[in-house]
C-alpha cells in the first residue's frame, strides 16, 4: 500500500509531510502547555467558578478535578490517542453524576479549557500571525475532538445509569400476587409505557394460567396519570384476561384519572371498576363465593 501511494503523483502537498509538521506543532504546543501548567490551570479553575459551573462541588474539588482534566487533556494532545481520556471521562462522570452535575456544565468546562488554552496561544504567538495560524490549525481539531470525547463519555455514562435504573424499576414493579385461591391482585405503581404495559399483560396472563385464577384485581392507585394509550392498554389487558376466563376488577382510579378518562372519551364500559383495593377484593370474594365473617360469629353459642 505504501509503495503504491508513492507512485501516484499527487498535486496536493504530501500528507505525510503535513502530519509531520502538525505533530511538530503539537509537540511545541504541549511543551508550552506543560510550561504554563500552574498558571493556565488556575486561570481555568477561576473561569469555571466565575461562570458558576460545577456548583455542586467545592472550590478545592474543582481545582483537583481541573488538574487531572488538564493533565489528561495535554496528554491526549501529545499522544493523539483518546482511550486514556475516554476512560478518565467515564470515571469522572461516574463520580460527578450522582452529585447532580448536568451535561451543560461538563460541556461548559471543557469548552472553557479550550478557550483558556487558545487565549494563551494567542498571547504567545500574537507577533507571528502565520505561526499562530498553523498552531491553531493543529490545535483546534484535536481540542474539538477532546471536547467531543468528554461530552460523549459523560452522556453515555448518564444514559447507562438511566437504562440501569429503568431495568431495576421494571423488574421491581410488576408483581402478580395471589391473595386467595383463584384470586390474584396486580398492583401497578408508576408510569405505564407501551413496553411495560405489554410486559404487565404477558405476566398477568401467565399468572392467570399457572394459578388458575378466576378473578383478578388490578389496583392502579399508584398510577399518577393516564392517557388514552394507557387506558387502551388497560382495556386490552382486561379483554385478554377475559379470553382466559378470568374476570378483571380495576380499583383505585383517582379522581383526576376518572376525570381525564371521561374527558378524553375512553370507553371503559366493559370494565368493572371499584373505588379502592379493599372494595375490589370484597367484590372478588363475592364473585368467588367467599364470605368473610368475624371469628366470634363462627363459634357456636354455648
Amino acid at each position, binding site marked *: 500500500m505504501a509503495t503504491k501511494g508513492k507512485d501516484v503523483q499527487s498535486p496536493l502537498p504530501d500528507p505525510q509531510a503535513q502530519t509531520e509538521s502538525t505533530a511538530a506543532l503539537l509537540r511545541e504546543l504541549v511543551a508550552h502547555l506543560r510550561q504554563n501548567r500552574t498558571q493556565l490551570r488556575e486561570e481555568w479553575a477561576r473561569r469555571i467558578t466565575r461562570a458558576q459551573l460545577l456548583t455542586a462541588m467545592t472550590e478545592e474539588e474543582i481545582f483537583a478535578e481541573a488538574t487531572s482534566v488538564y493533565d489528561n487533556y495535554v496528554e491526549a494532545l501529545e499522544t493523539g490517542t483518546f482511550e486514556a481520556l475516554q476512560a478518565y471521562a467515564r470515571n469522572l462522570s461516574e463520580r460527578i453524576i450522582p452529585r447532580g452535575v448536568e451535561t451543560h456544565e461538563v460541556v461548559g468546562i471543557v469548552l472553557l479549557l479550550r478557550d483558556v488554552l487558545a487565549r494563551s496561544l494567542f498571547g504567545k504567538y500574537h507577533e507571528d500571525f502565520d505561526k499562530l495560524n498553523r498552531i491553531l490549525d493543529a490545535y483546534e481539531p484535536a481540542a474539538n475532538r477532546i471536547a467531543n470525547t468528554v461530552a460523549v463519555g459523560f452522556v453515555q455514562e448518564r444514559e447507562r445509569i438511566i437504562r440501569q435504573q429503568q431495568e431495576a424499576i421494571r423488574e421491581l414493579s410488576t408483581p402478580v400476587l395471589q391473595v386467595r385461591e383463584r384470586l390474584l391482585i396486580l398492583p401497578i405503581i408508576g408510569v405505564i409505557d407501551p413496553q411495560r404495559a405489554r410486559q404487565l*399483560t404477558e405476566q398477568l*396472563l401467565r399468572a392467570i*394460567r399457572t394459578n388458575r385464577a*378466576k378473578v383478578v384485581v388490578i389496583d392502579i392507585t399508584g398510577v399518577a396519570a393516564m392517557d388514552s394509550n394507557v387506558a387502551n392498554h388497560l382495556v386490552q*389487558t382486561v379483554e*385478554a384476561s*377475559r*379470553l*382466559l*376466563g378470568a374476570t378483571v376488577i380495576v380499583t383505585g382510579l383517582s379522581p383526576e384519572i376518572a376525570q381525564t378518562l371521561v374527558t378524553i372519551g375512553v370507553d371503559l364500559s366493559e370494565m368493572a371498576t371499584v373505588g379502592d383495593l379493599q372494595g375490589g377484593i370484597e367484590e372478588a370474594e363475592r364473585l368467588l363465593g367467599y364470605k368473610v365473617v368475624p371469628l366470634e360469629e363462627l363459634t357456636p353459642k354455648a
Partner: protein
Amino acid sequence: MEVPILKQGHYLIASIQSALTDADLSQLREALIERVGRFRARGVIVDVTALDVMDSFAVRTLRDIAHMARLRGAETVIVGIQPEVAFAMVQLGLTLKGVSTALDLEEGLAFLNVQTQLRIDRGPGRLDRG
C-alpha cells in the same frame, strides 16, 4: 382434518387438535349447530388449547358458533385460549365480544353447569309470576 364432537350429558364438546383450515372451521360450525338440535344439547364447549395461532376467520367462526348455538337453545363457552394467543387477539382487536370463555375444560363445564342451572331455576319462576 375433522374435529371430533363428543356428547357428554347435556353438553357437546368439540376439541380442536390441530390447526384448522377455513373449510374445516366452517364444517365444524355446521356440524355443531346441527348436533345441538339432534342431541338437544344445553351447552357447547369448544376447546382450543392446541391452537397457537388464531386468525380473524377462526375468531369469527367461534363467535358465530356461539351466537347460532344460543339461537338453538345452547350456551357456548370457548376454553383453553393460550396466554400468547389471547394477547395477540386483543392486539388485533379480535376480542370475542359476547362469547363466554373459560380457562380449561373443567372450568368450562363448571361454568355451563351454573348457567344451565340458573336458567332452569329462573325459567318457571318467571312464568309463575306472569
